[in-house]
């Protein structure tokens, strides 16, 4: 049970960040390397606005995040000259600016956020810190909500269409520029939410987001562009792999093996026969065909 709870706890964090980065990637074909640093901004909002209750602080972070993300997208990512790589570099620069900015304003010393829900709860015989459970469940619920929105709403359909073939989608009447803005803001907000929600269990420091980037990047690597379900699945896989390895082995060995396994899977996936094999399996399912 401990292990399942640990996976759930880790999935909440990685899930929000990975689905966020996948939403942005689907619409813009840009890997947002500032995703972790946006989470750091959310965490600092929770750490500094201590006058308000925790929920309000999270809401303030999200509301304040909208205009900032809009501005970033309009000013930095909209240039016609930007190709995927240049835009990725822009997000890298944005992340660096956010980290340095946080260091200037808040100094490099780590801060903590008081846990809003004290105590432990008993989950099928395993005592578990109450707040960890609350934030894992909240985060997972938000991930599910985003997946449902992507599958059931017009926005989700457009997102998938643009992810698959942006030119064709534009010909058919969607405005890819509007969608890109929307996706960047939505994906960024998921990161801000992750940072704020998980701030009471982490040390809040300027470099905290950067540490989260690697597992999230792996999640994106293992998912299919435009299919947010696979991004959530990949985040769950990354969380489970990390927790299971660290449960069975020492942390150092677990980390080395974790990278080895993820890289091996990514390398195998790129083999054509694996692609044909999985495509053959996908073909009979009408739902998957619809998603593709």
């Amino acid at each position, binding site marked *: 049970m401990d292990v399942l709870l640990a996976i759930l706890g880790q999935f909440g964090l990685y899930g929000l960040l990975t689905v966020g980065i996948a939403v942005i990637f689907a619409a813009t074909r840009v890997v947002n390397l500032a995703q972790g640093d946006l989470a750091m901004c959310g965490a600092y909002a929770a750490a500094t606005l201590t006058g308000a209750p925790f929920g309000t602080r999270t809401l303030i972070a999200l509301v304040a995040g909208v205009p900032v993300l809009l501005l970033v997208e309009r000013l930095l990512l909209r240039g016609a000259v930007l190709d995927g790589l240049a835009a990725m570099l822009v997000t890298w620069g944005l992340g660096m600016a956010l980290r340095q900015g946080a260091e200037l304003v808040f100094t*490099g010393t780590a801060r903590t956020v008081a846990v809003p829900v004290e105590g432990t709860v008993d989950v099928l015989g395993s*005592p578990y810190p109450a707040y960890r459970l609350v934030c894992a469940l909240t985060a997972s619920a938000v991930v599910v909500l985003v997946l449902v929105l992507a599958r059931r709403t017009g926005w989700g359909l457009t997102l998938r269409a643009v992810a698959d073939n942006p030119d064709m989608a534009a010909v058919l009447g969607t405005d890819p520029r509007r969608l890109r803005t929307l996706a960047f803001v939505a994906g960024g907000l998921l990161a801000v939410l992750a940072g704020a929600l998980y701030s009471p269990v982490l040390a809040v420091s300027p470099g905290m987001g950067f540490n989260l980037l690697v597992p999230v990047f792996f999640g994106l690597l293992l998912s299919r562009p435009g299919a947010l379900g696979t991004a959530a699945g990949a985040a769950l896989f990354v969380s489970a792999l990390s927790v299971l390895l660290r449960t069975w082995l020492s942390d150092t060995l677990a980390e080395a093996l974790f990278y080895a396994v993820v890289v091996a899977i990514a390398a195998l996936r790129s083999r054509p026969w694996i692609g044909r094999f999985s495509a053959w399996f996908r073909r009979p399912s009408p739902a998957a065909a619809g998603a593709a």
Partner: protein
Amino acid sequence: MVPSSLPRSRGRGLMRAPRTAALALAGALVLVPALSACQGAAVSDDTPAADGPVRIGVVVPLTGPVSQVGTALRNGLELAVKKVNAEGGVGGRPVEYVVVDDAGDPANSTQLARRLIRQEKVTMLFGTITGDTAEAVGKVADEAKVPFGTAILGDTEHCFPYQWGFGESTRQMLAPAVPALIAKYGTKVALVGSDYNYPRFYAGIAEQLVKDAGGTVVAREFSPLGQTDWQPVVKRLSAAKPDLVLSMVVGADAVTFSKQAQQFGLLTPRLGYEGAPLDADFYPALAPLVEGRTHTVRWSDGVQDAESRAFADSYRSAYDWKAPIPEVAGNAYFGVRFFLGAAAKAGSTDPKAVNEAIGAFRYDSPLGEGTRFHPSNHVLQADMRDVTIGAGGAYKVTKTHPMVADETPKKGCS
């Protein structure tokens, strides 16, 4: 560095060589000394002016993840120089210092240390926080034969002839603390640390001292830097049912680990807890978890002698400081004064002469009566103190261990 005999021995073949080769060789003869000077090695131009001020080169991270500690070290040094200059300088010479920011990156530290020696003509180097940057500067200092002082706690397995540490060595930290903690909390000890050289070195010494004090090490855990989820580690530690946890989890991870250890029910007031997370730097983040605990340090702002109090007061007013003053600031303050005292004794700004004087110098300060470096390990033989962390961040001295010796020899000191 290119030995000076090399160009001359090549020169002998000149008569028989064709004209173009001779020209090329002549060019090489001009270039070789120029290139070797570029490498920042000790050439005669690097030596400071004999009648000028005493210059200190300060390499510290003022940006990056350890900038807060780096800034504290710089502040302590700044106040020490001010104090020495107010008292008439070093043998009548004023003291100057040049601060450079290495951002905690050893590649920067090497370049900057070389620049300080070559361009600024410093008599001594001081600073660095992380072990890798200390080693980088230590190598440059050794190459150029310029004394280099550090102030951060902890030591390394290796010793450099020109490097001197004013922070407490691992043995000095643990030797007084471990028996007392085992007597108070129990014999089962767990060791946890960030996964790099120093915490493993710390754990090795801790394990020995735990055995000597009649305890047993029931768990050893190391986790990579930047760990966000400590649940598996905390669960393994809890399963070993320790009475005492010695932690060398550093940086922001010290905060994450301590918080998660408390949330998972490991870190309770009944469990003994000592190590890096109890340092003054972490107090603002971890106050409720560390209050009431005892921490063994060389210097804290709770040391009550007149000199320490004057230093703490000037630190608070100069830098508008309200939190506990980081230990590293005090170590730097008294360390620089030790260095300058040795320079006065040497009666010269020649780095080599100052280094010799440092090795033989004895200095009375709040760090101890007659503090001195042991020749076989370059560890400062000085006092240690038990401080009890009180409400509001009062690090009150509850016991003084006079002159805690660490004479374990290390390779490379001479």
